[in-house]
């Protein structure tokens, strides 16, 4: 029986953000924007969706008098990501 792929993760930008955050302890919004090559507006929307799903934590603070947003993956996010990768592997094994 195949598991359904998590619709929150099964989109290019959200998956890219989650993969990045999985590999670092925390990252600034500008870092994610640079690495994913996305626009600030689009990234903000996707980050908000991930936050609402409880997959990431968003910390807003001031750095040198400028607003700074930092993102961090949550344990729920890690679990969802692992489930997603397992489901993907299942699909790909059947294809072979």
């Amino acid at each position: 029986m195949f598991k359904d792929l998590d619709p929150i993760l099964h989109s290019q930008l959200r998956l890219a953000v989650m993969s990045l955050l999985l590999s670092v302890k925390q990252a600034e919004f500008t870092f994610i924007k640079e690495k994913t090559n996305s626009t600030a507006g689009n990234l903000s929307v996707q980050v908000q969706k991930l936050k609402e799903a409880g997959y990431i934590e968003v910390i807003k603070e001031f750095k040198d008098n400028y607003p700074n947003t930092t993102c961090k993956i949550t344990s729920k996010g890690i679990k969802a990501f692992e489930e997603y990768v397992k489901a993907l592997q299942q699909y790909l094994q059947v294809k072979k």
Partner: protein
Amino acid sequence: MEEKQLSNEESLKLINRMIYEAKGYFYESGISGLVYGFSITICSLLTYFREKEMLAFPFDPFYLMTPIFFLQGWIQYKEEKKKKAKTYIDESIDYVWLGYFLSVFAALCGNFANAGYIIITIILFLTSLAAFITGMLTKFRYHVICGIICMLISIASFFMQNVNIYLLLAVMAVMVWLIPGFILRAHFKKQQHNL
């Protein structure tokens, strides 16, 4: 990057690419290494000349390290703020060096029991270990080799329980902090230039 649905293969490729991108992130200006390198080398040499009575110095030169620690703490704080991402390797290295400095302070307590030059030997071993682990974590081959050479220097220090041990400490400071400091600084400047 656009918001679009992915095929399963594309998803796996994207995950791999992003993990690779994140792990490749590195921010190190080399200033910390230079500050420690210069200060420990200078303090070791001053102590050597003072104990050889070639130089009059009003107090133990290593007392100068106290303000250096505060200065270094401030520099570290500023550097951390400039990092756009904190990797797990960064965090592990911070713990290694925090453990190192706490162990050095603990070893310095041997002065209360007049432990003598063996304290420097302990510090040399601790430095070799921290350099070796840092090299292994960052895959910076220089630090791995340097750690091994410093372990040999530490062994040699058992046979040099006299004032000359400060020269070994100076050599180690140059190898562990000063040279990597210059390498990282050059790399950092090059990186900034390319931006």
